[in-house]
């Protein structure tokens, strides 16, 4: 079970909920279950979102494991210059 | 519109071309003669990326008409090295990493060559003002100035 915080525009797409608890062992499972529970998130997930695990921001690589009781943040995918 | 026949010297070679009366020397160099070292950054003489030397005078080739090169001496970046021997300025630009994207580099090298020909021992301020007609967006000019200083001392010593 991991606690996922949805930030900024992602929170709005999940019906205003900022913190959700999901049972998931990797990013793919996390996304699948999030999309099931909050369909509004699905298009954003498809476009690509950034996943912060214990402070480091990662890409949305499906196989990335989510350590137990890690702090997970989902952030909008950002652009650089 | 009929073309203008021009006979000129470019980097020491006799060159002849036909151009339109309203064509710039920059366009002639790049599009007719294949000398793409001079770049168009603005087309209005503000950026110096098209710098060449015309009869010992540093000019923006986008502000010179192709027809105006008649009977004159043109020096471009392509003539700066001698065979495989780089000019000290070219060598120092490489050593000091005075270029990042490199688009402004040909213009700077020509302008610096002209600067040092007229003032072989410039102060930092003289270098900065002497090169103020060339825009660089990548380097902040620090390494460009150091490269010119280093080249100046090499050229004085030689």
């Amino acid at each position, binding site marked *: 079970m991991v606690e996922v915080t949805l930030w900024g525009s992602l929170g709005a797409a999940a019906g205003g909920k900022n913190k959700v608890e999901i049972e998931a062992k990797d990013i793919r499972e996390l996304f699948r279950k999030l999309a099931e529970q909050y369909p509004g998130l699905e298009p954003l997930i498809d476009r690509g979102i950034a996943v912060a695990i*214990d402070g480091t921001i990662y890409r949305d690589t499906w196989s990335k494991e989510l350590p137990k009781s890690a702090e997970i943040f989902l*952030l909008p995918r950002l*652009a650089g210059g | 519109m009929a073309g203008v026949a021009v006979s000129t010297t470019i980097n020491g070679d006799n060159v002849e071309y036909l151009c339109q009366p309203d064509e710039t020397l920059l366009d002639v160099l790049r599009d007719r003669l294949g000398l793409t070292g001079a770049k168009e*950054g603005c087309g209005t003489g503000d950026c110096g990326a098209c710098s060449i030397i015309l009869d010992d005078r540093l000019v923006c080739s986008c502000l010179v008409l192709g027809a105006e090169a008649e009977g004159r001496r043109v020096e471009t970046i392509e003539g700066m090295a001698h065979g495989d021997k780089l000019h000290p300025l070219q060598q120092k630009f*490489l*050593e000091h*990493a005075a270029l990042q994207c490199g688009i402004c580099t040909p213009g700077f090298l020509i302008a610096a060559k002209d600067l040092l020909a007229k003032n072989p021992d410039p102060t930092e301020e003289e270098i900065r003002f002497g090169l103020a007609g060339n825009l660089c967006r*990548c380097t902040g000019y620090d390494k460009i100035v150091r490269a010119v200083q280093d080249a100046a001392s090499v050229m004085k010593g030689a």
Partner: protein
Amino acid sequence: MNFDPRYSARNFASVGTRPIRPDGVDKVTGRARYGADFNMAGQLVGRVLRSPHAHATIRKIDTSKAEKLPGVKAVITAADLPDLTDGDAAMYDILDNCMARNKALYDGHAVAAVAAVDARTARQALKLIEVDYEVLPHVTDVDEAMKHTAPVLNDTIFTEGLEEKPVKPSNVTKRTQYGHGDVHEGFGHADFIVERSFKTEQTHQGYIEPHACVANVSSDGTADLWVCTQGHFVYRQHCAQLLGMEASKLRVTSSEIGGGFGGKTHVWAEPVALALSRKAGRPVKLVMTRDEVFRASGPTSATSIDVRIGARKDGTITAAEATLRYSCGPYAGMWAEIGAMTAFACYNLENVKTVGFEVLVNRPKTAAYRAPSAPMAAFAVESAIDELAKEIGMDAVEFRIRNAAQEGTRSSYGPVYGPIGIGPTLEAVKSHPHMKAPLGKNQGRGMACGFWFNFGGQTCTDLNIGMDGSVSLAVGTVDVGGSRASLSLVAAEELGIAYEQVKTVVADTATLGYNDMTDGSRGTFSSSMATISAARNATKILRERAAQMWDISVDDVVWEKGHATAKGEKHGNLGQLSLKEIAGASGKTGGPIAGHSELVADGAGVSFATHICDIEVDPETGSTRVLRYTVVQDAGKAVHPTYVEGQYQGGAAQGIGWALNEEYIYGKDGRLQNPGFLDYRIPVCSDLPMIDTQILEIPNPNHPYGVRGVGETSIVPPLAAIANAVSNAAGVRMTHIPMSPPRILAAIEAERGG
């Protein structure tokens, strides 16, 4: 893939040295070919017709006269670019921006284009295209555009992210919020509070090379595109999608690029060039003029930011709040959101709240500019922080050290930080000799911190070992500032050979797998990781070949300093085999030796910098002189230190121009008044002093060599550092960027008079 990206300490032989870059000679001799330096046989000249109105409905476009002009081979409008975006709103916006479909949304918006045999004919053809506009009221100011009386650019847009769903369309596309704690309570505990509003004007990346491409669409549906870009794979994807082509049929070659800074991460005229070529059946060369670059590519946001920060008298910040309004041009973006995320990222805050508003205006489409959105937010926050420190009576650096984020701090954008470098940069600044340099009359010192995310991403590299022992490294990240040198150093390091034995090139889209763009400070970070991985794969094969040549087990072969060595007493007389020797025999031992890597580089880690700046202000004219400038930034591991210094200096210089002079000036008619380098004044050589740099190296735990991205962070602190310096020199708080002479003078006079 068994590649382990984690950092392990080592003594470097090549990495950290300063050799000459492999593409250098071509660049100093004029041989290097940029976007406009390429030509195809039979090519036509492409030119674009652009709206002279800031906001207008396009009622009708009559291209018949232009089509009849001798020498004109194709004329296109939006009708020649059917909408294939299939509900993808972002792609639709790109399509509409490339060629207006219903409305001209800014001065310079493309409405039609021609391809003709020469430039003169193309220009004449543009004049013959008749466009029937219905001019509409326009709005170019970010605050004006938010008012309910403002002309609405897009009446299908209803602000997202509000508590109550709005009933009227708006120019505000979205509201986003970040933060934690309770700012109301936090302000209640504050002994001092500073509250200020700030404005920053729109600026452009200012690359010296205008957008340029040569497009060739063949009758069999394949196409070639030569283009200056920061991401040829992304350009391929977008162009193919917009033109209805399979990506594999479009081959994009990246020319050398004359600057990008984020402005060449989006397509502007490339789909137009392809569409023209498709219609004309011939190659089309399309080069933007400088005027077009300013009017119709992608400048930054103009912003309006309110900041409120409170602290106790011991210097601890108790609450921090900011409202950020960013202009997006005519299409939705997430610019204010990024500003809201980065605004307070440098600090350890118990209570913080940032709210961002994305605002549509009749200006060109906002694009990324080196750490997009962060510089403006940093300007506002760092200015307020400075003022707060002063009110409390604390030193500017000490105040920041006291409140700086560290490992374990909850960031203002959400996640808790791992090991980060802001503390070290502040400590380095505190003891830097610049802080002791004497200041004279009308001279002031300012310092500021900055933050940026860095990115990883999809990356491929091919490392091929020639039979003569030379190594070819093909990468897919466009080289914007010397990365070919850095990547050659990494390959040399990993293989244990001389730098000169490695030649790095940037491959095209047909010869290498997909690579994300060179943006987000990811070029060296990502490609070096993939290079290390590819080199390790090649080393495995080299060991296998050596084992074969010696007829021993590969488990007994190690790779050390560019040689295969047989380990173990029983192999004591075998000596060593160099890479060159193994490569020379490769034809007999199994064929060419190579290492490949396809990976998603990740864990780039965030980046911090602190800058110091000394400015002299002339109180009679408001003009300024930059006396001293110092950049301190963490690079993790500087692969080629000279090029890392170059990134620091370049970002600082752009920030200096942005802080003191650069701005888009719009007239009442909504037209851009200064689309040229004369009046859009970027710093020239005589404006700047030497820019001192200090590279800190706190290894990134997620990269084998500890490398961090460095390209962007250095543009984040300058606006604030300079504002603080000017404010100290002039004795009045500056709140409007750029601080051009008229603004400084007005502020001084207001302070005198008031």
